[in-house]
């Protein structure tokens, strides 16, 4: 008999809290508070949706990749994002929701995905910049999640992070190669970095003062750092990389603060961020329409697979 089966709620709750306190993992069959479960489902689903929607901005350039090697790298990367979506939906499924339900939540707009993917990709340099800055920011967000209290999520994140850091290096390498190319290519890289720097900073979410759910998530061990802590870490990490690359980060307030031992930096445009969250960003409608169409176009295929499986089972 495991503890889950018949123990009264307060015993279970004490057990849950002790597990969290020990930094041990909660597993699917363990008892967990409903709020914990809901928060996790929301967070994992949003993360999974982000991987799936995130296939579009980069996928936009697969057909135009300027060398066969880059085409292979990009195609494999977008494929990995589908794979990440798959792990994460599986992790969410251990909490009792199906992938189909979650997909419908995405398509109907009831669940969100990362706003970064509502920005358009406008040149091939964006493939590199997304790798470097967007995947870089994602890694800062996600590395702590490898130690998240929910087992399946944490294990999924370990795989995801390993691949993401590979993608980040590939993105950086593309930009570095382009910087060794023509003047037009260097200008393309700089322009791309100008566009993605601020949206990348937004990926850590609003400033801590405006992020009411952070405390509970941290208490539950779902989240391990505040938004502002992670954002600072990302900035500190990116500055020397930008220097090595030879690009300028488009923030006049960006400067090393000897006293803090960190960089000071400016604030992104949180109003534009909120427009994106509300659905009014430059590509929200396009991303949602694409996902909805793909899902609807696939309905007859999924039905056929179900019908065939049923016939096989019956025979």
């Amino acid at each position, binding site marked *: 008999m495991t503890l889950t089966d018949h123990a009264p709620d307060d015993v279970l709750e004490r057990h849950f809290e002790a597990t969290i306190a020990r930094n041990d993992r909660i597993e699917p069959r363990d008892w967990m508070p409903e709020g914990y479960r809901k928060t996790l489902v929301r967070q994992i689903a949003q993360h999974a949706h982000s991987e*799936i929607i995130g*296939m*579009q901005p980069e*996928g936009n*350039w*697969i*057909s*135009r*990749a*300027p*060398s*066969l*090697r*880059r*085409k*292979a790298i990009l*195609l*494999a990367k*977008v*494929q990995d994002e*589908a*794979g990440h*979506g*798959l792990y994460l*939906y599986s992790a969410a499924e251990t909490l009792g929701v199906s*992938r189909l339900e979650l997909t419908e939540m995405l398509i109907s707009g009831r669940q969100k995905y990362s706003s970064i993917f509502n920005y358009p990709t406008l040149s*091939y340099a964006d493939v590199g910049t997304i790798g470097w800055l967007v995947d870089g920011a994602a890694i800062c967000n996600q590395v702590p999640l490898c130690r998240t209290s929910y087992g399946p999520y944490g294990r999924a994140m370990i795989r995801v992070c390993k691949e993401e850091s590979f993608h980040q290096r590939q993105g950086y390498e*593309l930009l570095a*190669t*382009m910087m*060794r*190319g*023509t003047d*037009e*290519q260097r200008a393309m890289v700089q322009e791309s970095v100008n566009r993605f720097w601020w949206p990348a900073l937004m990926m850590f979410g609003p400033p801590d003062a405006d992020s009411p759910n952070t405390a509970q998530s941290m208490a539950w061990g779902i989240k391990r750092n505040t938004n502002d802590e992670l954002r600072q870490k990302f900035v500190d990490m990116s500055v020397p990389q930008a220097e090595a690359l030879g690009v300028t980060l488009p923030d006049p307030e960006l400067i090393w603060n000897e006293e803090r031992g960190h960089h000071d930096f400016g604030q992104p445009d949180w109003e534009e961020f909120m427009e994106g969250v509300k659905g009014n960003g430059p590509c929200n409608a396009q991303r949602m329409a*694409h996902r909805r169409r*793909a899902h609807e*176009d*696939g*309905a*007859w*295929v*999924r*039905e*056929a*697979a*179900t*019908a*065939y499986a049923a*016939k096989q089972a019956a025979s």
Partner: protein
Amino acid sequence: AVTLSTYALMLGDDSLVMSHRIAEWTSNAPDLEDDIALSNIALDLLGQARLLLARAAKADESAVPPLPEGSPAPPEDALAFFREAHEFRNVRFAEVVNGDFAEATVRVLLFSVWRLATFEKLRESRDHVLSAVAAKGVKELAYHRDYAARWFVTLARGTDESRTRLITALDSLWPLWPELFDTHPVEAAAAEAGVGVDPASVREAAEAVLDQVFTAADVEPSQAPRRSGVLGKTGRDGMHGEPLSRMLAEMQSVARAHLRGQW
């Protein structure tokens, strides 16, 4: 050397163009597993294309389009991004515009069954590069074939709608099936020289495999008649359909905008 080069170009262009079409499915497939599987197929074919185009370039450097001085593009990229449509030697089958998922299923099935039969023989090529590409490709193509065959049977035996769509797709692609087994003089010469495979020689093997899939799916072979070429010429002669030049306009746009670009 010209024969070997042109022969490798033919195979390489098939893979490249087919890979491009399959890659268009990325983020559009009916389910994540299929998105991943189709990307995988596209990646395998792209890998084959790179090796085959590089072989074509090495066997005859004059086949490679000249690029401006200072361009660091490797020869396989010059071939992929700086030829015009009429210089591509792929079969027309590979370039057809994508349809629904049934069409993707039939496309991958027919292509991989055909190409697998070819590569099984090409493993014996006297050219070590071609034989190595074939040896590796056989495993990849067997996976592609199995994936497509599974869906072929599933769609055929799934719902009325899926069966109708599957048969429609089969009838739409079947007119280009016979062209896959036409022997172009270059292919005949390559076979003669022991470096290539005469397509006509693999038809029986390929159709025997297809018949097994058709039987499992309870689908009759298509009766759709062969699509004719233009003045007797088809893909292997550089005579294509309208979609290829559109595909290339997109595929080549960035590379051509940066003639000296480093990527």
